[in-house]
């Protein structure tokens, strides 16, 4: 019991060190545990994969900020790569809130480097932030040109060859909302419900559990949840021969596995210690709280 008591009072720096190590070591020496795609991710991948050139544009939205970037940026990049390689026209929309445009800009800069022969305005388009949140979603259903006016760089909408004939949701094949916020619910309420456009999402692991309701009801086409979801999408990209960049999500999966394992072990050990110590205290008649 003494041992356990001391063990429970272990300085938390050791735990911090442990977490640091189980994350760093697998990153340096990967095991490459296989990633098995789950149904929501497969559904989303297939939906985008079966799109032709003239099925309408894919509309990718970056509703996240640096706080959730590690989970959501790999998803954004995968979907963009998927579309560009296939030749499906893709629009990147810099989010419904002002703070998220920086993330879209970052993704755009990466794309420019990775796909030097794809032309902005012809193969892909970058639309900036427009205030209004739900009003913007509604406005896209009426007329995209009057809603945005220009692209992020100030090029007038009618000078963007790719957007010729793209008027409203009729010309959008799917909205892919990559989000660290409640925005998927807004796209659902105002875009999907009202205009019938398909919506697929990428979200953080924190919000994934609450979106299963909408997946089950078929309101979302598919979903990538957290870094695992991003890794599953990368896995599918790889299987079908698409470029995957450095596969940041897949590379992180081993670290994710071992990180979880350590936390599970900590929960179990902590509870074993707790019960042993508590039983001991009961015997001696000490009340736990006044220790």
């Amino acid at each position, binding site marked *: 019991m003494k041992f356990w008591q001391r063990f429970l009072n272990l300085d938390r720096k050791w735990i911090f060190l442990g977490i640091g190590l189980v994350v760093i070591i697998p990153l340096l020496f990967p095991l490459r545990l296989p990633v098995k795609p789950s149904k929501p991710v497969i559904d989303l991948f297939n939906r985008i994969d079966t799109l032709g050139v003239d099925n309408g544009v894919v509309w990718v939205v970056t509703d996240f900020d*640096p706080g959730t970037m590690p989970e959501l940026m790999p998803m954004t990049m995968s979907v963009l790569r998927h579309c560009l390689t296939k030749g499906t026209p893709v629009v990147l929309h810099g989010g419904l809130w002002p703070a998220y445009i*920086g993330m879209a800009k970052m993704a755009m800069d990466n794309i420019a480097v990775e796909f030097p022969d794809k032309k902005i305005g012809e193969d892909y388009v970058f639309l900036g932030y427009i205030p209004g949140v739900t*009003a913007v979603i509604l406005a896209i259903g009426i007329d995209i040109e009057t809603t945005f006016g220009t692209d992020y760089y100030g090029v007038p909408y009618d000078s963007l060859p790719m957007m010729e004939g793209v008027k409203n949701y009729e010309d959008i094949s799917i909205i892919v909302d990559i989000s660290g916020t409640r925005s998927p619910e807004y796209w659902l309420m105002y875009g999907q419900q009202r205009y019938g456009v398909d919506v697929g999402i990428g979200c953080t692991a924190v919000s994934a559990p*609450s979106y299963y309701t909408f997946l089950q009801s078929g309101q979302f086409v598919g979903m990538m949840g957290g870094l695992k979801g991003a890794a599953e999408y990368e896995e599918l990209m790889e299987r079908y021969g698409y470029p995957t960049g450095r596969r940041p999500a897949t590379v992180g999966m*081993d670290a994710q596995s071992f990180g979880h394992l350590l936390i599970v072990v900590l929960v179990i050990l902590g509870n074993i210690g707790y019960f042993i110590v508590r039983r001991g205290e009961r015997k001696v008649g000490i009340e736990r709280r006044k220790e």
Partner: protein
Amino acid sequence: MFIRRTLPILIAFCIGFAMLIQYFIPHPYSERFYDIVVQQWFITIYAFMFIFAYRSFFSHHIRKVKRRKTGYIFSIIAIASALLMAVGGFATRRGDFFDSLYNYLYAPLQATMFSLLAFFIASAAFRAFRARNVQATLLLVTAVIVMIGRVPLGDYLWRGMPDLIEWIMTVPSMAAMRGIRIGVGLGAVATAMKIILGVERTYMGGT
């Protein structure tokens, strides 16, 4: 007394009721009204509340510097960083320099701050998450299953793991989430109604 107490409540009633009724009137007048209130009024007032927060920030740090409180040097740094970002943004009209500040200072700092939680969650798992009763036990057991099952390791240990997780998420977990949502939703609607009726006045200082 009237302008201090009664009038704000009257205004709250009028605007709240109007915004509610607006939802049921599709006529352009009603839509125009909605546009003006949401796009002009709300956003303008919202902007002022921001200004209020800025003032709190600057006055807090300036006071520290003036009084030479311990660590006032950090307050100088905070003010300087704020000015750097703001000036950088305005001077370059959100150009490359502003982008770089965002990409290489702001973004890494925010992401790192959040990632500290990974360490704290581990420490909390060890020190504070206890199966102190049946409920907490159930929570911890489910959490352990999900933690192992949602990563490739789980799939590696047992092939049925991913399906089990999908089942937990789509059946028992979803059912309860739905119930909680309905409850919280009803609570929010009831609170909103009380605000409009002026029976809930806590937000005005309880008077």
